[in-house]
């Protein structure tokens, strides 16, 4: 021990007690906790040294008081400050925002690859709904009104007759917030045993199929595809990824294996969170393109090239991106398999 810290009397070591007694220790611990909670990086060196010392002194006092049979009600203040101190001392240090973002970029491809089955299922469900919606409306265009909301119906007709609006990156904000809300919802709905996610996928498939059928029957397909082709691929991919995360959660709830259901849900939700967050990043790119470039009167081939390269870029990133998924609470049964695909 070198010079004693200014405010932490070290008289008797950890086992001993400061001159002020237990009351002083508790008070010091309370003020340290308050500081640590709100400005953790502003704690002085002496404070950092004092925090565990005070914690151990007070928790030893609690153990002693319990052993002596002190009524629980009198120990409430000790317990409260100890719960807080324990929660701060033993929690890992939170990463800074920039580091967390880099970690997300590295984890995202790994987690997506590990969930390729769920991703395939999401695509299949949407295609199933799409096929049904398309065939129903194609055989009887009148039934479109039953499948689509008036707004979507309007939208579809808009491709036939509506005036073009200008491209503006600001519009991207609408598309991004709408689509990211959908992505977060299909992820969260996994907690309904996956049922909600499945229904949303089917429903969205039906709407897409029905819209496509109307557009084709109106003969407005050229404009429709010209609008959709630049951003649609990336957008769909992102929503499928978020939905796959939801399906993983649902599957964990249905087949928890040796875990408790709630633990299985928690592990799956934590393991697949990067998919929901990563999907929203892809949607930010797609939204910008949708608001800005898609409405522009560019030749179809230009837009198609842009759309294809966006999709290809995303797939290359997802397929080749290397990195580990640190803090992954799920003991993956086949780590070699998922690593081998990369």
């Amino acid at each position, binding site marked *: 021990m070198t010079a004693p810290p200014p405010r932490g009397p070290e008289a008797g070591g950890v086992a001993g007690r400061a001159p002020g007694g*237990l009351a002083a220790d508790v008070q010091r611990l309370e003020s340290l906790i308050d500081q640590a909670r709100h400005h953790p990086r502003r704690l002085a060196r002496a404070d950092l040294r004092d925090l565990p010392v005070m914690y151990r002194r007070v*928790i030893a006092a609690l*153990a*002693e008081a319990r052993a002596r049979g002190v009524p629980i009600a009198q120990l409430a203040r000790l317990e409260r400050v100890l719960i807080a101190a*324990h929660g701060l001392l033993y929690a890992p240090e939170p990463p800074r925002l920039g580091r967390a973002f880099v970690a997300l970029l590295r984890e995202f491809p790994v987690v997506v690859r590990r969930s390729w089955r769920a991703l395939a299922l999401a695509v299949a469900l949407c295609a199933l709904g799409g096929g049904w919606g398309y065939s129903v409306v194609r055989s009887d265009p009148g039934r479109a009104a039953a499948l689509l909301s008036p707004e979507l119906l309007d939208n579809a007709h808009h491709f036939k007759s509506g005036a073009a609006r200008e491209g503006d990156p600001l519009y991207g904000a609408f598309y991004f917030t709408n689509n990211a809300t959908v992505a977060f*919802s299909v992820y*969260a709905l996994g907690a309904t045993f996956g049922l909600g996610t499945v229904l949303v996928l089917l429903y969205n498939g039906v709407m897409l199929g029905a819209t496509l059928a109307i557009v084709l029957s109106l003969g407005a397909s050229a404009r429709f595809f010209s609008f959709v082709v630049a951003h649609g691929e990336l957008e769909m991919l992102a929503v499928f990824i978020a939905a796959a995360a939801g399906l993983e959660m649902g599957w964990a709830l249905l087949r928890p294996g040796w875990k408790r259901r709630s633990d299985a849900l*928690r592990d799956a939700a934590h393991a697949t969170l990067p998919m929901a967050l990563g999907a929203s990043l892809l949607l930010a790119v797609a939204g910008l393109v949708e608001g800005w470039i898609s409405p522009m009167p560019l030749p179809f081939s230009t837009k198609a090239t842009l759309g294809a390269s966006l999709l290809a870029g995303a797939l290359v990133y997802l397929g080749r991106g290397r990195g580990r998924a640190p803090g992954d609470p799920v003991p993956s049964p086949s780590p070699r398999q998922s690593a081998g695909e990369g």
Partner: protein
Amino acid sequence: MDRLDDVATVETPEQIELALPLAGVGSRALAFILDFLIQLIPISIAMVVVVVTNSITLINKTEKGDVVQDVRPSVMAAAVFSVIVFVTNFLYFTFFDLVSGGQSPGKRALKLRVVRDGGLAVDARSSLIRNLVRTVDMLPGFYVLGLISIFVSREHKRIGDLAGGTLVIRDRAEAVGDLSALVSPRPALLAQGPAGSAPALSGPDRALLHDYLERRDKLPEEARHRVARQIADTLAARYGVDAQLPPDAIIDQLARR
């Protein structure tokens, strides 16, 4: 005081149990209503801005006839509006969870706190999951699923708490009693502990005692007395224990060192 089922027990690495007092439905609902009202503030401000810009655009339109008119301000206002709604929806709770250690303003007012399952401070992942899944708790309306989950689950968890691995606990400052009265001025057990004047046992002697104590009850009466006498005589001299005590008393006293 607390009912037994209203706490989640945590064992600290010091092997001492702490009881986290779980929050009740009422205080959680009140906290949410407060938070909801606070969330309405930025949203309604943005809404006012949108309405104002829109009407300005409209006035310009009627004054200038139907010529080229600038809709950009109203587009910009609407874009900002959608972003503000999105951010308050999805990041309000997580922001405050991380900035103030698990307390949104509503929870702070009601003296509640979000922690992770083991009582640890909430982290970004758990908080994000807990609050993304909030949309499911709200289904089909008025938090019906969340309420059912709180009533059914052992630790009063809504679905978001289950998925995030979090708890909501009460964090109320308790009435201050005389803390110094809780413990003796110097811990009684430590005062006469091994740090005192009595020398500690050497390894072989400790092993000898251990072996004897383990077999003591199985030995025939006579053999037991003989062995005990032998051990006690040897060790009493070596460690300075009163040799006049009965052999087994000496042995017991040494074994406690």
